[in-house]
């Protein structure tokens, strides 16, 4: 029942592409090809997703009973801390930018590679070194500070392996900074002829905005965690009042990065959705410049809202009023995106292919995640729901419902380009729906739990909260299936999938104008862009109905 044209049986894999151009482990570990580096990231972020996922599974099993069903309090505290650290710093933040962004930005703008291919490889090595430090911390005593590392708990009182963990995150920060730098320079200097700023795919705009946050925000978290580490190692008094420091200072510095970091996770996913929707609605995106501009607006305003995490720390009332106001402002550009995506569907030619199901699922979950942000930005209401499961539900809707749906949807959308193969469509649609249902069952009950007053990070809880916790755990088991299925069939398809051809959907972006998988140099000849973004009607090369026939050769400018 697929409404995508059936794959042409004539398609053959290209004779030489980036995957088979050279062989051997060295050709991968020393590659400077952005596409191969993207695959290195794909492998490594998947490992961290697995580790974080195992922790999450144990957390949900533990919370089946009020007294805690599985582990000791110490272990439970380590589980949620390590879940957060693995997922946020080593999966969510690098996932879309360093994997899909790395693979696609040069292809989308018609470049042969990123501006600094060796720095790109260096970014991956830095990520791996940082990751090893963190895994060392997990393996030698674990980490029980919460992913937020609040002082003086982390810098003085914790008995776990805090120092290697903060060093790992400090090191990993340079990977983000270099990736952001690489993207910005590439987007500025390496666009193909005709690829003007207003013809850039929205995915590229989203990554441009993300890169700004990478460069401006990451140094702050790196330094902050380093200071916490120094206080822990040498008792320098930055944050511990017993040494003359101030624990609130840590929170300001921490959230100055970690709030914008939420946008690092979700902006690229918004970019993915902005690509998928026009392709599967087969029409230009509604309000291109508003979607592009809202990415920049989110990146800028997102830097000005950090202290909304601190409404009940005793910060001054005027500060609280200011940060609440600004938090409401940052909601507007996100709303603009949702309205524009929805309007794009109007009078479209909508196919029900898997990436589209992920994209629409993203809109639904991101909308709930975004709207519940309005509850938390509300000063009077935040007094009650701050640090409860309401917050947990809210940010999982944004980061898992939003960012991970976007990532998995993007993987499906570009899988034919990355591997040259198609995956089994019916199975993948089924998995997308399982993921959507499992996600809602897991996290929706947590909104209610939070409003009822269940604080986060509790290894045991009063019995009146049990029903909702059991529901949440049941949902999580469905959610897990929704993740395992794509891992299985995507891996399967690499070998056994049907050959995709260069442009299976078809889509309008430059990345679809080259072979699947692309050659090492991306394009056999430098492409030239003569069409507006997401324009189907002037694209006879896509072979669709109702499209003008090819113009005569002399009119080809």
């Amino acid at each position, binding site marked *: 029942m697929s409404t995508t044209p059936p794959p042409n049986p004539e398609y053959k894999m290209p004779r030489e592409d980036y995957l088979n151009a050279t062989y051997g482990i060295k050709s991968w570990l020393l590659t400077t090809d952005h596409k191969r580096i993207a695959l290195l990231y794909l492998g490594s972020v998947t490992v961290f997703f697995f580790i974080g996922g195992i922790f999450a599974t144990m957390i949900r099993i533990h919370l089946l009973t009020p007294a805690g069903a599985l582990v000791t309090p*110490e272990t439970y505290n380590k589980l949620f801390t390590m879940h957060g650290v693995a997922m946020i710093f080593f999966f969510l933040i690098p996932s879309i930018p360093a994997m899909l962004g790395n693979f696609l930005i040069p292809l989308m703008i018609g470049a042969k590679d990123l501006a600094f291919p060796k720095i790109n490889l260096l970014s991956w090595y830095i990520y791996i070194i940082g990751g090893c430090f963190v895994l060392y911390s997990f393996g030698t005593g674990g980490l029980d500070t919460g992913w937020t590392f609040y002082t003086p708990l982390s810098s003085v009182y914790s008995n776990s392996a805090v120092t290697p963990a903060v060093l790992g995150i400090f090191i990993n920060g340079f990977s983000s900074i270099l990736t952001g730098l690489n993207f910005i320079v590439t987007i500025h200097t390496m666009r193909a002829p005709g690829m003007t700023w207003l013809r850039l795919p929205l995915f590229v705009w989203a990554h441009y905005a993300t890169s700004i946050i990478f460069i401006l925000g990451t140094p702050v978290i790196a330094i902050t965690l380093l200071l916490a580490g120094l206080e822990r190692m040498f008792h320098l008094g930055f944050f511990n009042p017993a040494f003359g420091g101030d624990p609130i200072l840590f929170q300001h510095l921490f959230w100055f990065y970690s709030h914008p970091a939420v946008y690092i996770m979700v902006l690229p996913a918004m970019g993915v959705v902005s690509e998928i929707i026009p392709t599967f609605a087969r029409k230009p995106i509604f309000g291109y410049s508003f979607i592009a501009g809202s990415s920049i607006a989110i990146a800028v305003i997102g830097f000005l809202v950090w202290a909304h995490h601190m409404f009940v*720390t005793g910060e001054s009332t005027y500060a609280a009023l200011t940060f609440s106001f600004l938090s409401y402002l940052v909601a*507007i550009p996100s709303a603009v995106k949702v309205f524009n995506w929805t309007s794009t569907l109007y009078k479209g030619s909508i196919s029900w292919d898997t990436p589209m199901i992920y994209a629409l699922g993203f809109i639904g979950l991101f909308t709930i995640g975004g709207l519940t942000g309005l509850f938390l930005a509300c000063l009077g209401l935040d*007094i009650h729901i701050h640090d409860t499961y309401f917050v947990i539900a809210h940010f999982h809707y944004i980061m898992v419902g939003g960012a991970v749906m976007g990532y998995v949807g993007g993987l499906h959308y570009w899988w034919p380009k990355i591997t040259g193969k198609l995956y089994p469509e019916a199975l993948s649609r089924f998995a997308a729906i399982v993921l959507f249902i499992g996600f809602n069952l897991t996290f929706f009950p947590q909104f209610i739990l939070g409003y009822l*007053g269940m604080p986060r990070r509790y290894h045991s809880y009063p019995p009146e909260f049990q029903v909702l916790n059991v529901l949440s755990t049941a949902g999580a088991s469905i959610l897990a299936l929704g993740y395992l299925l794509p891992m299985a069939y995507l891996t399967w398809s690499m070998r056994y999938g049907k050959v995709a051809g260069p442009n299976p959907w078809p889509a309008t972006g430059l990345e679809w104008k080259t072979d699947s998988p692309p050659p090492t140099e991306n394009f056999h000849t430098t492409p030239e862009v003569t069409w507006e973004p997401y324009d189907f009607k002037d694209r006879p090369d896509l072979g669709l109905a109702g499209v003008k026939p090819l113009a005569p050769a002399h009119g080809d400018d």
Partner: protein
Amino acid sequence: MQSQLPMYPEQASNFAPHVDGLMLFITSVCLFFAVCITIAIVFFFFKYRRKDPNAVGVAIEGDSRLEAAWMIVPLILAMAMFAGGAVVYVDYRTAPKDTLDVYVIGKQWMWKAQQPNGLKEINELHVPVGRNVRLILASEDVIHDFFVPAFRVKMDVIPGHYNTMWFRPTRPGRYHFFCSQYCGTNHALMAGWVTVMEPSDYAAWLAGSSGGQTNPVVAGEKLFTEKACATCHVANGTGRAPSLNGLYGGQVLLADGSKVVADDAYIRESILQPNAKIVAGYQPVMPTFQGQLTEEQLLALNAYIKSLQSQPVPAKSAGIAPATGKN
């Protein structure tokens, strides 16, 4: 507790109806938008489903009037949410004058409370119904957070800071309180019960269980003598340090010409970091007591200094304004 699945906790303080009102308002607005978006997506999804594999959609680039509308309308609604939340928050952060003050100390992993008459409780807090209660919060180690869901209030308890929170219990009963800022191993066990009592019951309870407890003012006075504070802080203002009579709540003129209100945080800071704010007309000669006093001793000293309220203010210089100049 409730046997069915409740959607919101009991309402037992003056803030609870307001917070629930905000919840209801924001939920309605958000539900409206979520339902509209969902209906639109589902409708378009079926209505414009592709039938011919080669069909393309109608090229619609955008509409700036629509863009303006869906920026302005949500902005107006967002500002309404902001304003509603701000009103409740400002109320919460501005305690009334006539509060019953209870000291609460958080430490890994227990809560200690001390009633005005010195009665101490552990993981329990008794308060009278209908009375404005203010909690003065201090931590002995890491950051904690005192959270009473039935009152819809919480406040971080931060080492090195005094935070305050207030509420007016409206219904007698027993309500859970929790630590809601993660504080280490037994964070989840750092919980207890608030008992809201009729004022007469509360008075009887205070009287009945206060035997053997030291009034914090008395304890503070003893410390004041033991630590030799009185050597310099002479009551009649002739000492090397300012008299503390009538200090609390008044304005203090500092050596750099600025003025501060002598609140709990100021008194605490002046004990621990005496040189942070020097009163005009005096020399920075006081030694620090950082690390020499427990949080409980600090609170006792604080209570004693506050109790000096009724006495006149002898002034060697203009350092301390008359107590009548409160706030």
